[in-house]
């Protein structure tokens, strides 16, 4: 960690303010934290931080979806989940207080889509439920309960009955849940 704390230029700052849901304080704080993750290298706007380093952040360390978060927001060509500063801002913006329900539900869908095929099929749902309930045996669902749960979910949310939940169906389900917006938040 060198003493070179590169400052964010003003025009970039105002651009980020316009394009994301973050306030100026939040963007500056994100910049500070990201620079610390990089170890004080110069030029944070295009250089990437590896996934392992991002996952050392206290806000993400214990989250069961942390790897999916990195993969979804990463624009890296190597698909290794590394984030540059703008990806990091994207992440924070989607999880901020003022982000719209549409943005949140869009990214939630991509996070839950474990195989990145654009729909939530039974395998994705099973992985999702396992992420939610944990690895220990007493909290995990039995195979029978899992099967029952997935068929219930598909029955409730699959409107066109193709066996998968696509984005519109997902957003329809989410729109009926008033707690989604308040729980889909990360504060730095």
């Amino acid at each position: 960690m060198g003493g070179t704390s590169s400052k964010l230029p003003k025009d970039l700052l105002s651009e980020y303010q316009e394009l994301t849901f973050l306030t100026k304080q939040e963007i500056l704080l994100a910049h500070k934290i990201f620079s610390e993750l990089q170890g004080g290298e110069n030029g944070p706007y295009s250089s990437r931080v590896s996934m392992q380093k991002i996952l050392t952040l206290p806000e993400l360390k214990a989250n069961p979806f942390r790897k999916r978060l990195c993969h979804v927001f990463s624009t890296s060509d190597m698909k290794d989940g590394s984030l540059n500063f703008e990806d990091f801002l994207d992440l924070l913006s989607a999880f901020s207080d003022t982000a719209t329900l549409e943005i949140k539900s869009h990214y939630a869908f991509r996070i839950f889509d474990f195989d990145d095929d654009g729909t939530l099929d039974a395998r994705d749902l099973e992985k999702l439920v396992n992420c939610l309930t944990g690895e220990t045996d007493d909290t995990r669902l039995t195979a029978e309960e899992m099967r029952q749960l997935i068929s219930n979910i598909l029955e409730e949310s699959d409107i066109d009955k193709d066996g998968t939940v696509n984005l519109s169906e997902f957003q329809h389900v989410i729109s009926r849940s008033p707690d989604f917006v308040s729980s889909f938040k990360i504060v730095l």
Partner: protein
Amino acid sequence: RLILSHLSLQAPQWISEQGRSRGAIISQYCNRTMQLRRRRQSRPSIQHFPRSARPSIRGYGVETDAAGFEEEENKRDRLVNNLQNLSDSDRVRMLRAMPLSLSEKKEMLVLNKAEHSVSQNQIPCCSQLKYYIIIALRHGWYGWLSFLSSLQLWQTALKCVGGRFGTGVLSYFIFLRTLLFFNVFLFLVTGLLLVVPQAITHPDQDQNITVRSSWGLEVLTGAGYFSHSLLYYGYYNNQTLQTGHSCSASGNGTSCSSGLSYNMPLVYFFTIGAAFFITCIILVYSMSKSFGQSFRIDKSKGLLAIKVFSSWDFKVIKKSSVRLQRANIGTQLKELVAEVNRQEQKFPVLQRLFRLFIHMLAWIMCLGSTLACVLAVYYFSEHMHGAASSDPLLKEASLLAVPVVVSSINLLLPGFFNVVAWMEKYDSPSMLNYISISRNLLLKVSVLGVLCYHWLGRVATDPQSLGLECWESFVGQELYRFLLMDFIFMLLDTFFGEFLVFSQKALKRKRKPVFDIARNVLELIYGQTLAWLGVLFSPLLPAVQIIKLLFLFYMKKVSLKMNCQASGKPWRACQMTTIFITLLCFPAFLGATVCVTYTMWSITPSAGCGPFRGLKNMFQAGKRWVHRLAAVNPDLHWLASAHSYLVENPLFLFLCAGIFLIMIYFHSQVVDGQRKIIELLQEQIENVRRESCEYVTVSSSYV
């Protein structure tokens, strides 16, 4: 045609494989910006509708991104073009809402600005000036928003609490912060308009009595030294305050007569009225906003899917809390799956009757205990005021008796209700929650009701029987004592209920206590009701409430961290927040307003103290001013007649209430209609799917 329809069915399949591909997003937003432009320009253009084979869905913005890369580029150019033609605020909002990565949005912005700057040279100079003004205003607006968000009180503390205990407990602290802001507002209004002018000018000479109590109980009882101070109503002047004194010391004598005049009774009346009115508007606004967020038309279906998709609280960051949350969700999912899939169990009639009997017994016990406590408070307060004691210390301490009794009732009885509820069996934990909240609320409302009757019905109408010269100051002192006792008992409750280490060993519990959110929020609402009741009689009471809330925040936070653990039961934060704001508005604020209005309308103020002495009721202050204005200025006589017809005539108020009820009925019918539309649309989707399946089978039979 059949082959075309077959192809068009392939396209949605392909889209769903790509997911929300970039092209799909861009074309969707292309259509949206086009619609927005059309809406702003109010001119439809049919050629922009995307091509689709099914005529019924043409024009609904369905993305059919079936072509290759070149079409995507075209779409992007079209999107940039559309964005340019929108107004600045629309463009910013559209760009923000697009779920694309930041680098792509920046490219679009750059393209946008490039085109913009090219055409900028051709803009005449006045439009350029307007452009710069708009840019400056926008920067100013962002700066103001940043400043507001930097003022967020306790941001880090709330984040820690949310990170460890989740959204439910966090909502208690956010509610506390909201109440703090209400009180700060009240304090500023009454402080600036009432306390400061009265403090600056000299007090009435005939009120120069100081009663000193040597036992130091003043802080607790609010009497003694405080009874003739700015804290209470009795101190305030009923004349028009003049700043003549300061004038005579300096300057020439001729300008002294035109010193600042400040009509204290009028200002007192209007300040309290305006403060309540503005608080009402803010409360109703936040209630409707919260209601809008949490109300859902179709609540019965889709519980499991909603639970799975939206139950993970991303705010929780502590490892142990994450583990606990996972365990909770696992248990809830298992319960829900079992519940949804269980066969309709027919309990034997005897068991059902037995359960009904238990419920009725529980309710009788709770209502009976509430009634007993209310009667106890009623007779005890009467007795305490009748009893006269010679010993001054005992006399002072006896003032504290009724508040102590009421606070201990408020502390002990909800615990009793919890025990009673433990013996009943409820179908769902949320039902249990609602029942306990309503029992607690009933208790507090009845206790407050009997106290208001005691103050306004007994003390105010017959102050001589108690030897009081200034009943308003006395009521103000009572409210101060109640507020303070409430705080002290909350301190004791936190200390004994949560802090004491031996309580764990004493009760041999392995688990730490759980923070009871509903009970704590109801305590907050009770305290706030007392503060609202007391503003009229004690203008500095909001300051006391502010200090109390500040202490409470830090105390509860420390106690939480040291002693409590996160709850195992589900807590629907959004719904409960709406319920609490509604409870704050309806029984609490409405009750306080009714009491204050009743006091102002029908009770005679004391003749010897306060700003309204000599008037028939406090309302007269406003009326006299209006009449005086009309007498001085004949053109304003319509004001006086409007006042007597509108404000004093109950018919006008009934009319307002009637219109309000009609609007509510109308809105509820609209919601009903929307519910029916949703059902019809779902049926339509089913039919479309079935038809398309038939098309596929028919077309494949042709091929």
